[in-house]
């Protein structure tokens, strides 16, 4: 299944590893921050409504 990458295997594999890691990191951070801000806004709106 794995293609024969020959003498450039390290370069090709490390390119894929670095890129995929960075992309996953970017998506992960974006999703986590989106959830956190959404939750904090809901709490703030609730508090503001309660305090009039």
């Amino acid at each position: 299944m794995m293609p024969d990458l020959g003498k450039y295997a390290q370069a090709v594999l490390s390119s894929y590893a670095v890129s995929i890691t960075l992309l996953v990191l970017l998506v992960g951070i974006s999703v986590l921050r989106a959830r956190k801000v959404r939750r904090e806004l809901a709490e703030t709106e609730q508090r503001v409504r309660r305090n009039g």
Partner: protein
Amino acid sequence: MASIWEYANPKKFIETTDRLLPWFSALALLCLVVGLVWGFFFTPDDYKQGSTVKIIYLHVPSALMAINAWMMMLVASLIWIVRRHHVSALAARAAAPVGAMMTVIALATGAIWGQPMWGTWWAWDPRLTSFLILFLFYLGYMALWSAIENDDTAADLTSVLCIVGSVFAVLSRYAVNFWNQGLHQGASLSLDKEENVADVFYHPLLMSIAGFVLLFVALVFLRTQTEIRARRMRALVARERLQ
């Protein structure tokens, strides 16, 4: 037909992008998986570059998005300057970390490819240098947003920075043509079919590019929503403090 300016309303923007986001995310994942698996497992080695040709499925789309993300930020910044729509300024802010990450991927994969092909990780070649400067502009742009407390002032100043940085975004794209020197080769994709990479590499590359574009759009939707909510939260907290 709804006017595009309707989406300048934060509520309308969030409602619309909430509906679109799952589709863009799913399509991005599908195109990325198909493009990268196709490129990595089912394409032959290049007669000159050997298996390192497989790096183009990451390098070309990320470099393309690094430049186009800045262009999207430029359009959004101009809309902010002319029409004062907060959503456009926040969309530019939301796109910056995505563009910066694309630039890092392009620089990293370029360096990893350059080492065996050119015999060096880095060269002060016109395209590489303008790309590095573009990355520094991304960092400066994000730092400026974080450094200024007033959102409108931050949007004004970052918009000016974005316009200045656009010179380097354009240079990153055309440096090879302008100076006609250095190590970096010309475009891998062109409207002139003769200049394109061979079909066997071209189709998976197009799929991978589509994946990167869709991922960028999905992330900008999500991050703009986050910026809109964060701005509303700051406004509510400020109002609370005044009471």
